[in-house]
């Protein structure tokens, strides 16, 4: 068992994490007036979200950590199944629950 952690230590940790996170999120807004006029910002606004979603899918599924495709086969099947459900039925709830259900069934060896 780890030694108990002091509340002051956790409180300071929370403050540090809050300030760093908020600072990073707020930074672009402080330069809004100078950045907003630039056509590059419109370019980023249109194109970065899709790219970021792709990166987040790879990050959240931990596909990038795999040495071999067999390590992430269930993740890849789950991703493909969720994508197909969303493309065909256009229903968030169905896609989300369908994808999670298939993944849970696969990783627990239920089929």
């Amino acid at each position, binding site marked *: 068992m780890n030694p108990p952690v002091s509340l002051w230590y956790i409180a300071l940790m929370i403050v540090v994490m809050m300030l760093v996170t908020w600072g990073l999120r707020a930074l672009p807004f402080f330069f809004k007036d100078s950045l907003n006029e630039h056509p590059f910002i419109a370019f980023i606004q249109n194109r970065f979200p899709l790219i970021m979603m792709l990166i987040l899918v790879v990050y959240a599924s931990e596909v990038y950590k795999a040495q071999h495709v067999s390590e992430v086969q269930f993740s890849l099947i789950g991703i493909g199944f969720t994508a197909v459900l*969303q493309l065909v039925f256009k229903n968030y709830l169905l896609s989300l629950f369908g994808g999670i259900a298939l993944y849970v069934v696969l990783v627990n060896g239920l089929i």
Partner: protein
Amino acid sequence: MKPTSLFTITLPVFLGYIPLGITFGFLMVSQGIAWYIPIIFSVFVFAGAAQFLAVGLVVNHASLMDTAIATFLINLRHIFFGLSLYDFVPHTWAKKAYFMFGITDETYSLLTSSKDATPKNALSIVALNHSYWVMGTAMGALLATSIPPIKGIEFSLTALFVILLIEQIKSNPALKNIGIGVMACLAATWLLPNYFLVTASAIALLLLMLDYYFTARQNRPIAQEAP
């Protein structure tokens, strides 16, 4: 807008945050930390990946400098998020500060992907998403000792991002964007897999800047040649 409509808009995040928040709350309390600590984290930090990292930091008594660096690295991608959200910023300072506080991956995804997200309801979307995250954390923290975790439930976050990616592709189906994303992921996996998120985001931005530069050069009117 009616609350029910707002709930419908934020439903994908609700479905992602509740199980993920439960996992976070459960994980932190199962490390011997008091039940209310993860809830305070979720109220004041509101950063999924960084909070999961915080479990390890607390348990290992990491220094505050280590905490600051780790949080900076893992959340560095959030610098780019604000660039796409200028139109959504509220006008008063308190609302502005809270809006900026709430720009998580999922809120950013929702605001930039959903046609129903508008500058009028953006702050409510942020607040609702935040409340889901806190609720999920509280549920996980309080039920930590009585409910065994379901193996595979962590896929909820991946599924959420897949759905939002599909919506992005449908609204802006440019193969070049997908290509840049794939290249950034491959390069980050090869170069710095331990800092995948930060590296991939930075490489993607760099590639976009190069693309912007060359596109601007191509579109520049050709100067008239001297007679």
